[in-house]
């Protein structure tokens, strides 16, 4: 049960944005710009970074929903997502994305541990400044979302079908602030 009263039956971040719409507006705006607006990283890749950081933070709601969005966006290669979440080093993804996931993992654990070598490795695989920047900011942003969602003990659905629908909506419609019905 959530630590504070939230709209019943509404999961995760959506329940918080409904109950606290002003902060919700800024949070949805941030994630829409970060995960959908222009970036050298594809939307599928950015969703994978979000899912991976959420996985490391053990935030089930964020991990399952962003993994579902990433699967939808990877389309024919949707199997990539679960392989990468399981072990990105052996997953069928580019070396560049592997090196960025490694940076994202360090940001999640302790951001001070991201070294020049980590960044140089990513650059050697073709990462540009914006790849580095966006990876760190996505990782940091999901460290906020995960804490917000779990710190208030929001509802986490168990049905995998719910996440598949959520992922499709996130992939096709983007991040639209929920409205009270």
């Amino acid at each position, binding site marked *: 049960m959530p630590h504070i009263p939230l709209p019943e039956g509404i999961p995760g971040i959506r329940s918080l944005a409904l109950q606290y719409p*002003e902060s919700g507006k*800024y949070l949805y705006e*941030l994630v829409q710009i970060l995960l959908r607006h222009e970036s050298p990283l594809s939307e599928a890749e950015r969703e994978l970074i979000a899912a991976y950081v959420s996985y490391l933070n053990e935030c089930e709601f964020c991990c399952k929903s962003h993994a579902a969005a990433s699967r939808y966006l990877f389309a024919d290669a949707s199997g990539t997502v679960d392989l990468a979440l399981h072990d990105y080093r052996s997953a069928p993804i580019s070396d560049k994305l592997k090196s960025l996931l490694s940076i994202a993992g360090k940001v999640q654990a302790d951001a001070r541990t991201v070294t020049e070598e980590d*960044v140089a490795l990513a650059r050697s695989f073709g990462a540009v400044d914006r790849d580095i920047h966006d990876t760190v900011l996505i990782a940091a942003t999901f*460290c906020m979302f995960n804490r917000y969602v779990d*710190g*208030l003990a929001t509802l986490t659905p168990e049905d995998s079908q719910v996440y598949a629908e959520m992922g499709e909506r996130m992939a096709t419609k983007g991040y639209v602030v929920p409205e009270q019905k």
Partner: protein
Amino acid sequence: MPHIPVEEHLPGITGLLEYRKDTAAPIRALTQFLLRGSSSLSAGERELIASLVSSRNQCVFCTQAHTTAADILLGEAESCRQVIENYPQAPVREKLKALLHIAALVQVSGKKVDSAAIAQARQAGASDQEIHDTVLLAGLFCLYNKYVDGLATGLPSHPEYFKQLGERITTIGYVRLPGGYDHLKKKSGSESSKDL
């Protein structure tokens, strides 16, 4: 040296917020709303929460910046120093202590916030809104701390910088300056040449 090219005269978070302004806009707006918007917690108390989380994340820039802001708003430096050192013994009201405890748990992981911590805060008089704001504020500072340190941003070369930053965020707040930050370039330039 920062991992990406940011303007040299803008250490810490400011260089990053200027590097990508489209993502900076909602981050700034959320910060202004949470730290300066109307609340039953004073702006100084909210800066204490930001300082505690930043210090637990060992983010030197953010800790220094928000400690300076808290000190200005509270009119003394003892509270923030003690909150960082040992908040259960700090000279702040019981309700804030209970909220600082929740923030300290959030810093470790959202999953650490248990019903005992919530019950303790309620017993000390905390409202749903205050509990909500504390959790989001602690989460937001994890974002900031990780953004600032994950990209290895620099510390100001001049100690005066935090004083000026503290004055700016306690008067103007967290919104972007309409004219940007080029005036700091001239200022720090003349100061460093004066120092030489």
